[in-house]
């Protein structure tokens, strides 16, 4: 059951150039939120942007939640202006969470850039069922490898890569996955990042026979499944279901559900 709530900003910091973490008091939403779900945040009170913006829940506390975001355009620029004590209206939690099953041998969390956003909550959930998350974190350059230390502190195994080789391996998160996945036996993969990365993760997992839970990005309007903006081509039989709503059927999909060839 999602809510629409005015929430107090508890904290708001810049964690890297143009990257912020905002923490909100939202007990009801926190209670329902699961790793991989998202909220629609009203970034401004004016008529532009008219729509809310979707952000994955980064962490879930007893009485609040945090989001990790990157300034991309007007909406995120407005969001970055809120200060502690201000009120932000958010709607959520929405969408389907990452399924977390106990007893897997290896849990891979594959993150490209700001795609790391939903993984702190996911890592906690995996640890809670007795697993050890292996976070394969990649970014353009060193200072954009956000949260690496936090994951280590939580007890995750953390492997790093950068496009420019400034830290860790020179390469992508999927390159790290290829190195580590092996036969894939007993493994599950969670992936979040740009479409190209998700596609590569999907192909790698498919070849290894491993399930890949991919959190997809799409521009949204309603976040609630009514507007049909956020659709992606899915492997479904009927015409009516051929375009799946990221906000409702996702954002987390079994990567085999997505019709990657029809994706732009």
């Amino acid at each position, binding site marked *: 059951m999602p809510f629409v709530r005015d929430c107090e900003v508890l904290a708001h910091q810049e964690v890297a150039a143009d990257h912020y973490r905002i923490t909100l008091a939202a007990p009801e939403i926190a209670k329902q939120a699961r790793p991989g779900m998202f909220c629609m945040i*009203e970034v401004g009170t004016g008529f532009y942007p008219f729509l809310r913006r979707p952000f994955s829940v980064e962490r879930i506390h007893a009485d609040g939640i945090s989001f990790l975001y990157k300034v991309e355009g007007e909406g995120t620029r407005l969001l970055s202006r809120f200060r502690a004590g201000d009120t932000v209206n958010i709607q959520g939690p929405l969408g389907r969470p990452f399924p977390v099953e106990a007893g897997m041998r290896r849990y891979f969390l594959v993150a490209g850039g700001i795609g790391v956003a939903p993984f702190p909550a996911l890592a906690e959930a995996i640890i809670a069922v007795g697993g050890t998350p292996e976070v394969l974190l990649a970014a353009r350059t060193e200072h954009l490898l956000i949260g690496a230390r936090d994951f280590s502190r939580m007890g995750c195994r953390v492997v790093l890569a950068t496009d420019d080789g400034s830290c860790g391996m020179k390469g992508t998160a999927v390159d790290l996955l290829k190195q580590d996945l092996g036969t894939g036996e007993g493994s599950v993969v969670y992936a979040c990042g740009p479409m190209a990365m998700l596609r590569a993760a999907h192909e790698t997992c498919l070849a290894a026979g491993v399930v890949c839970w991919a959190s997809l990005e799409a521009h949204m309007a*309603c976040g*609630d499944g*009514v507007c049909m*903006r956020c*659709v992606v081509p899915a492997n479904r039989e009927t*015409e009516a279901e051929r*375009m799946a709503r990221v906000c409702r059927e996702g954002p987390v999909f079994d990567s085999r559900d997505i019709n990657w060839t029809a994706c732009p």
Partner: protein
Amino acid sequence: MADLRVNIGGLFMKNPVTVASGTFGYGQEYDEYFDIAQLGAVTVKSLTLQPRAGNRPPRLAETPAGLLNAIGLQNVGIEAYLRAKLPFLRKKGCTIIANIYGYVPDDYAELARRLESEQGADAIEVNLSCPNVHDARSVGGCKLVAQQPEAVLKYTRVIRSATRLPLFIKLSPNVADIVEPCLAAQEGGADGLSLINTLLGMEIDVKTRKPVLSNLVGGLSGPAIRPVALKMVWDAARAVKIPIIGMGGICNARDAVAFLLVGASAVAVGSASFRRPDTALQVIKGLEDYLEEHGFSRVTELVGALKTE
């Protein structure tokens, strides 16, 4: 408390507030936020005979105070609607306006017949004005039905003969004079009009030098078009005898009152629901407050009550 009930063209509504087709799905999703049976009616996404997957993304862009969409009528089709969507609405006790779309008059007639025979709606809204199902490259040669009064007359007559359900014709603002298609719909036997659908528009990404929408053009909705919608409803209301459901950028009760004053008998909340799912409910509450504050006992007293000297 003021009386909010209205009877528009044979459709009874407990209050004059519905939602705009395509902005509320089939009701179920937003029922998670508030009891949608409180609405005067639920208007569902345009239904076609066959399911449709809609246009390729991107399908929607934000423009100043507006949205530009070319969803392309993605919908489950009449069959799945009756089987999978209708039961929920009926169980809730919602008043239902089913919006229908077809390629030829007979499509509409068949949709209307099925809706009537299977109690799939309490009224029918006929979308003659969807800008997003044609190839934009040939727009000159491909007019909307709603842009041709004779075609509006013909379509309305065919659909009218297929159903006794209250029949609303939804028209397009992309005309020189909204009165002409309105009169045609009235002559064809419509019980009411829905005004307005979206304005044709376009948005360009100057980095890629491409249109933002895969369909190239789309329909403009939201607060940006409210002044245009108000003017059209005002023009139409003075020319026709049948009631009008007014829409276009309604965000709050003040906007809704404006539509009633210019002559709408009911209103529909569209794009604004995307931002606040319960906008329509807030409009109902705000309407009650407005009536109270200004000493009206019935919402019908507001209809056409604009003072122009």
